[in-house]
């Protein structure tokens, strides 16, 4: 059964290494002073990348039943819906209907 996959030690260690390196990069980027809003974007991309590594290898999604990945992706999607649609309000208040 695929979900009983024993994740190779090498994979675990290199994932950890990659995560630490990415953390260093994240902090490094902070000191480079990228102008907003790109600083946030870079930070989010790096964090997403790290999170993907954790999910795939530490949490074993890479070896696991596909449906579990679907569940995770779905939850992120709904989070984005929540933020996205709410911001249609919070970012466009008092602009009236002139946007059309």
């Amino acid at each position, binding site marked *: 059964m695929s979900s009983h996959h024993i994740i190779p030690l090498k994979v*675990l260690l290199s994932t950890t290494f990659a995560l630490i390196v990415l*953390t260093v990069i994240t902090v490094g980027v902070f000191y480079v002073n990228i102008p907003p809003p790109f600083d946030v974007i870079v930070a989010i991309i790096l964090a997403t990348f790290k999170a993907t590594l954790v999910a795939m290898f530490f949490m074993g999604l890479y070896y696991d039943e596909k*449906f579990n990945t679907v569940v995770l992706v779905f939850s992120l999607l709904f*989070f984005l819906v929540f*933020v996205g649609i709410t911001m249609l309000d919070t970012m466009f208040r008092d602009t009236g209907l002139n946007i059309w």
Partner: protein
Amino acid sequence: MANASTINNSRVQHHFRNADQQFSSSKLGMWLFLFTEVMFFGGLFVAYIIYRAWNPELFTMAATELDTLFGAVNTAVLIGSSLTCALAIRAAQTDNTKMVVNYLLITIALATLFLVIKYFEYTAKIEIGILPGAMYTFEGIDHPKASVFFSIYYMMTGLHGLHVVIGIGLMIWLVIRAKAGDYNSAYYTPVEITGLYWHLVDIIWIFLFPLMYLID
């Protein structure tokens, strides 16, 4: 929740056809639970994003009060604990009970270290009057909504901290059961599932760190 479903030792519960079915059910259950965790923290992230979009200057000013070093070290600590946690599962899969216990203990130690660091961070802030909400008295940030930033900060890190505490509790319980020899390659569902939970706690911190500490 993971625990309740799997208390029964290696025996397969009567309504499952076999161990595989039980294992993959538990795992799916845990993933769904993580789904709810994403939405639970999601609410706070939404509040964060919206307030940041409204007051970008406030977030820049306020983040200077947060210590990047503390944040970075804690990130590394949690990544390390994720590794040892994954290793504990590996040990269980390879029938190495002793290492299961050892790895779990290291994980617990790292988690505790995380909390200790958080403790110092919090006290440093509380001393200068950076408290959540109405108790906020700090005057170093010249912004009418400064207290809102720190409310969000305390809510997010506090809820995350609460998850760390729960994680420690779960792992202590795993250690006790592992010492009793309950886990082996045929049955290690609780370890696996607690591991999933722990990695999610790690992931959330991975996002919190740049969003809270690294704003310029």
